[in-house]
């Protein structure tokens, strides 16, 4: 029999998380049930990869033999789309170096999915249904998180103008200004009593999003905020190989300027996009965060394995 009086703090911490882990286990099952009911196939793409997606501000950890721990399964999942799969999802760990905080973990669980033939507005309707089905299955009380009310959808330009008196496009041109205005002035004023969606970002902030056909200075991208916390990001996916290569070069250039290493060329992904990825929309949802929000917690510390 273990001696209760000598239980180390590190174990007491885990015991304190048992209820959250049970809640999370139910959330995992419900997520898989939902995707199965929507004719999705669960895929498991490699976690250690040769070439991560180049992004300006996301850093993938590197292993000793030169592989990277992926920061998202995006490139591999898009190869599957090019290979002919139409509705796929992945629920597994991703890594982002140096990201630690109330809402960040270097190692976290991403729920990412792609729908061939869908646009980003259809993707939003789908994601709302997913989150509602989780809240229902987990018996989340409305006072913790009411996701059944009408969601507020605000274009980014309007949000910047109305909530911060700022011009989103001008902010986007200056290093770190868009982000600063977003976190200091826009996000705190987003409604907390209902989920909220920021939609149509300046093109610079749509790394893998296609430009809106009617206004190419905007990217087909949205972000869902629940209780003020950013929880899911979606794109109308960029499928133009010329534009994609241009962006990779630009991001790598930016990485060099910021003193970060250049990533190897994502050769197989570029082969796939040149061959042809069908018009599609994809969404990435921070699984730890949605668990946190539906559980009624304020920090990932309350629901994830201790750091």
């Amino acid at each position, binding site marked *: 029999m273990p001696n209760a009086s000598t239980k180390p703090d590190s174990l007491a911490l885990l015991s304190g998380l048992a209820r959250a882990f049970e809640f999370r286990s139910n959330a995992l099952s419900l997520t898989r049930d939902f995707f199965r009911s929507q004719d999705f196939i669960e895929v498991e793409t490699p976690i250690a990869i040769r070439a991560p997606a180049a*992004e*300006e*501000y*996301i850093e993938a950890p590197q292993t000793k033999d030169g592989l990277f721990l992926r920061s998202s399964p995006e490139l591999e999942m898009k190869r599957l789309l090019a290979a002919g799969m139409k509705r796929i999802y992945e629920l597994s760990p991703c890594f982002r170096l*140096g*990201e*630690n*905080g*109330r*809402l*960040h973990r270097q190692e976290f669980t991403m729920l990412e999915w792609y729908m061939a033939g869908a646009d980003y507005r259809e993707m939003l309707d789908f994601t709302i249904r997913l989150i509602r089905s989780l809240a229902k299955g987990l018996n989340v009380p409305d006072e913790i998180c009411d996701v059944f009310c009408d969601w507020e959808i605000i274009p980014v330009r309007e949000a910047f103008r109305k909530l911060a008196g700022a011009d989103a496009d001008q902010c986007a041109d200056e*290093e*770190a200004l*868009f*982000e*600063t205005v*977003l*976190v*200091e002035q826009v*996000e705190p004023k987003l409604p907390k009593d209902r989920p909220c969606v920021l939609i149509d970002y300046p093109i610079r*902030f*749509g*790394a893998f999003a296609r430009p809106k056909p009617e206004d190419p200075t905007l990217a087909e991208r949205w*972000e869902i905020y629940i209780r003020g916390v*950013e929880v899911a*990001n979606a794109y109308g996916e960029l499928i133009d190989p010329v534009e994609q290569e241009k962006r990779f070069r630009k991001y790598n250039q930016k990485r060099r300027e*910021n003193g970060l290493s250049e990533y190897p060329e994502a050769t197989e992904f570029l082969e796939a996009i040149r061959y042809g990825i069908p018009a599609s929309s994809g969404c990435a949802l921070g699984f730890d965060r949605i668990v946190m929000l539906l559980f009624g917690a304020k920090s990932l510390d309350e629901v994830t394995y201790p750091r």
Partner: protein
Amino acid sequence: MEMYSASDLKKGLKIEIDGYPWVITDFDFCKPGKGTALYRCKLKNLMTGASMDRTFRPVDKVGKPDLEEREMHFIYDEGDNCVFSDSETYDEVRIPKEILGNKAKFLVEDALCQAVFFNGNPIDITLPTWYIAVISETEPGARGDTASSNVMKPAKIENGYELMVPLFINQGDTIKIDTRTGEYAERVNKA
């Protein structure tokens, strides 16, 4: 000046901005999707007590203040200054009363204190937590209110310092004052 990188910032770290030392009282790592990381801090000025919010970007550098903590004994009061002796070097250190504020009223000979120096100048001092004082002046408490400790009345101690005490405290009573707040803590039982 030595500098910190933005990624060094964390709760409790002391930094220098505009010539003042600040402590980070609240810290949050932010990273709006696809954007650069931001380090959001709530800061408290160690000299004025003022608070402010400041957001740092990964490229930002932040000054490391020249702060030193030294242990000292109080020796005597010379009017505008209080004079201390450094416990290690035995050097005499003068701290102006305008920095000490009310704390100057709670110094007793040989009291062991912790002083904080910024660029070599004293900016704050921590006294022994309890100061024992005798009430020299206070109105008698109204009858029937003696059981209540929430109702307070003004009182003065022997060195002239004024504070609020519970109604049951009488002239001649010995009390404990919390030197961090300058407020009444409890009555000391007479032997």
